């Protein structure tokens, strides 16, 4: 009888292990924004533009959009005019393929490329208030629109690389992104919801940061959490991961500037 028990136990362990060995992607109808995991109090902050601290960055970004800078003495508005029409839907398509480097660039990098090429101005530092403000202002123009990133066929190999990084176990805890965000998003980690990891509202205001921050800042925090060596902000690997996550969230509405705990 003992060996039957052993087989039964082995089978049980096998079954229990299956979800960890083969990450099951979330079916489209079960996808949920991080918003739906929040307490009503936090949802209320995001829903009210006069209570949402992210709007402080959006308003700063609006001022920067109109200010002339660089050797060319041009503002963003001088070429792009009214952002509410010219930038509508743009952030929902980023990261997008850029022919010059021959690879995807995210919205922050696009803004800095535009500064270098057309305004002849110095690039803004990642996570600086000005870059976050401009990014938030541009992304807010897409609020409510469905995410379309990754549709460009040129992006296919980069989406695949991002997906590979999402699925790869790494760090001292030997965890992949998928172990939490595909397999265990309905559970909690130390009292907090795990969530599905859809980047619908970046750059967003995290109460923990007491500031606006980019998706890459969030990704680095997650990578640090599994005790792996995080990539530098702006690294190609993070842009590819960003691209995969955005394509994974395709069709979900943009929420920028979102609020998260």
């Amino acid at each position, binding site marked *: 009888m003992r060996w039957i028990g052993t087989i039964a136990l082995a089978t049980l362990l096998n079954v229990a292990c299956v979800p960890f060995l083969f990450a099951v992607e979330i079916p489209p109808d079960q996808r949920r924004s991080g918003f739906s995991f929040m307490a009503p109090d936090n949802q209320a902050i995001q829903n*009210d533009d*006069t*209570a949402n601290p992210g*709007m*402080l960055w959006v308003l*700063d970004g609006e*001022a920067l959009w109109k200010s002339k800078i660089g050797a060319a003495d041009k503002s963003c508005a001088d070429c792009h005019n009214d952002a509410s029409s010219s930038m509508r839907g743009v952030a929902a398509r980023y990261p997008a393929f850029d022919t010059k480097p021959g690879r995807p660039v995210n919205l922050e990098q696009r803004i800095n490329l535009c500064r270098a090429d057309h305004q002849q101005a110095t690039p803004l530092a990642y996570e600086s208030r000005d870059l976050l403000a401009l990014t938030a202002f541009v992304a807010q123009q897409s609020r409510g629109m469905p995410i379309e990133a990754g549709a460009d066929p040129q992006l296919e190999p980069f989406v695949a690389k991002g997906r590979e990084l999402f699925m790869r176990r790494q760090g001292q805890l030997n965890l992949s992104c998928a172990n939490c965000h595909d397999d265990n998003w309905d559970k909690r980690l130390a009292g907090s919801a795990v969530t599905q990891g859809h980047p619908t509202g970046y750059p967003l205001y995290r*109460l923990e940061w*007491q*500031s606006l921050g980019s998706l890459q800042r969030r990704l680095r925090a997650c990578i640090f959490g599994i005790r792996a060596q995080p990539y530098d902000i702006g690294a190609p690997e993070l842009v590819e991961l960003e691209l995969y996550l955005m394509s994974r969230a395709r069709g979900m509405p943009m929420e920028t500037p979102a609020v998260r705990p």
Partner: protein
Amino acid sequence: MASALINVPKKAKRGDVIEIKTLMSHIMETGFRHTATGELIPRDIITSFSCRYNGEEIFRADLFPAISANPFIAFFTTATESGTFEFSWIGDRGFSETASASIIVE
């Protein structure tokens, strides 16, 4: 640079209880943190907030280091007459910001 977000109803009936919501951009540095090299980061917070309704002070608050960045302050008052709400934030390092909003009371 934008610094304040104010939410006051544009219109109210006389005697209505109205909610006033304010958000001020500020880092609220506690004065208890250190840099990577061990130096103390000096305190830089808002210390006082007040609201005047047609010149009369209707709300005042003292703020302290435990209050988060970008403080959000909401309170209620009774709409008595048309006029202006004037908000004032005062803090460390000579920080001083004002904002105003008008209301029509029918």
